[in-house]
């Protein structure tokens, strides 16, 4: 009998499905249940199906990670709009943080950050965020 991929809770369980348990046609679903108006629902409230990549991780691709410093942020949203991986969490026009599960560490957010000093900087993956914040550079004087 084919299993309803929407019902499977554990991603690991999907990986073990036998041929007889697959849905015909290899169709995949975005959500566990009908979502009438996706554009109205923020990601954290969506009933993602386990087959939605939102439920998976690529954070381990990173060598360096962006660290966010609220102190300097002006909520310009450049990091949000140019992030290729939907990893800048922005709600109600405010920058909240980085989704490390989905961030591949490309560094675009840092490059496009216009503040001085920048509100996002790349740090080694293994470094603790608090430690990174503690060593944040000072404002650069215009030369």
């Amino acid at each position: 009998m084919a299993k309803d991929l929407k019902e499977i809770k554990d991603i690991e369980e999907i990986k073990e499905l036998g041929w007889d348990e697959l849905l015909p046609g290899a169709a995949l679903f975005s959500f566990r249940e009908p979502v009438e108006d996706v554009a109205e629902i923020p990601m954290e409230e969506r009933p993602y199906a386990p087959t939605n990549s939102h439920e998976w991780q690529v954070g381990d691709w990173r060598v360096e990670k962006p660290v966010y410093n609220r102190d300097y942020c002006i909520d310009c949203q450049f990091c949000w709009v140019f992030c290729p991986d939907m990893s800048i969490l922005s709600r109600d026009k405010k920058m909240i943080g980085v989704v490390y599960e989905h961030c591949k560490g490309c560094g675009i957010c840092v490059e496009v950050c216009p503040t001085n000093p920048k509100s996002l900087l790349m740090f080694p993956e293994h470094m603790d965020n608090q430690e990174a914040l503690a060593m944040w550079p000072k404002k650069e004087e215009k030369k």
Partner: protein
Amino acid sequence: MAKKYELNEVEVWDGNMAAAHALRQADIDIVAAYPITPSTPIVQNYSKFLADGYVDGEFIMVESEHSAMSGCVAASAAGVRAATATSSQGFALMVEVLYQASGMRLPIVLTVVNRALAAPLNVNGDHSDMYLGRDAGWINLCSYNPQEAYDLTLMAFRIGEDLNVRLPVMVHQDGFICSHTAQNVRPLQDEEAREFVGEFKPVNSMLDVANPVTHGVQTEEDWHFEHKARQHNDLMNSMKTINEVFAEFKDRTGREYTPVYTYKMDDADVAIFALGTTVESARIAADQMRQKGIKAGVVSLRVLRPFPFKEVQEVLSNVKAVATLDRSAPGGTFGMLFNEISAALLAGGKKPVVLNYIYGLGGRDTTINMLKEVYEDLDKCAKAGEAVVPLQQFLGLRGPKLSFY
């Protein structure tokens, strides 16, 4: 709502007109097509039905057969009924997308008017296109005359769209010999046909915005095999549904279809195994042989895929010699029927003499006399208990006799 098309109890339709009416009655939402001889009239007739208000939906005349089948795949994934028609080179251009259709499990109906493949270019009937697509994962139904082209096209929708099947279906008919030959056809009236085919049942429709679905995924080696296994399993098991639909159709019309077609096989010593219009011509040859005291029969596949392995074994269990007639250039081996029939027989522990005849390429006329020659060969082999003629022969060929093995 489409107008009712007034139909006589008996119409004189060629195979193309018969298929076009079946498509019309199936109330297709999207026909995406590109015309090619000899299937062109199906597409033309259908557009005329649409122009005269006899069918709803949309006819999209695309810019190639590749796009025709792509359009059908997209429409079917969108959750609507889709169908098209093609032949030969057009079929060849579609092949890439045929695999997409079956892999995505989309119940598209494709009426194939069989024609030779170039080179040399030839617009006439042979089974090269049918053979090209036989492993594409589609259900393949074969007709021998316009009535059957009509019946099987209607049934194709029921079979492919069945929730236990959800596979695309091809309906084959011989180019010109069937497609352009007008014969008596007893159609169903529109309402009866519509009732038989039924409403399209969307599965994972892309148009349902509340349930977003991803169609046409990529699989790596960790998944591809399982999906193809699932697809094969469901295609193999579709025979159950095919038989159910055949049975229901018989109840409605009295016309009986079976996965393996037989004529006078109960006591046959020798048999011709062929596809398409030749099956009917072979009946005449068989009758004439029987007048000479040779117990001749005819066998064919109504369902080429899934291959009715057991039924083939059964029907041939008592014959002494069988000739497989392949209407497609075999390209370096025996014809497909020879290979598949021999395999079925061997697996069933039977060893009648099996001969292979390549015939009718590019529309070459297949006469009753030629078929009688085949029976003569078979009779010789049956009496000798072994092959006393070459295993592969070319039938009706000019020049020195061409044979192998």
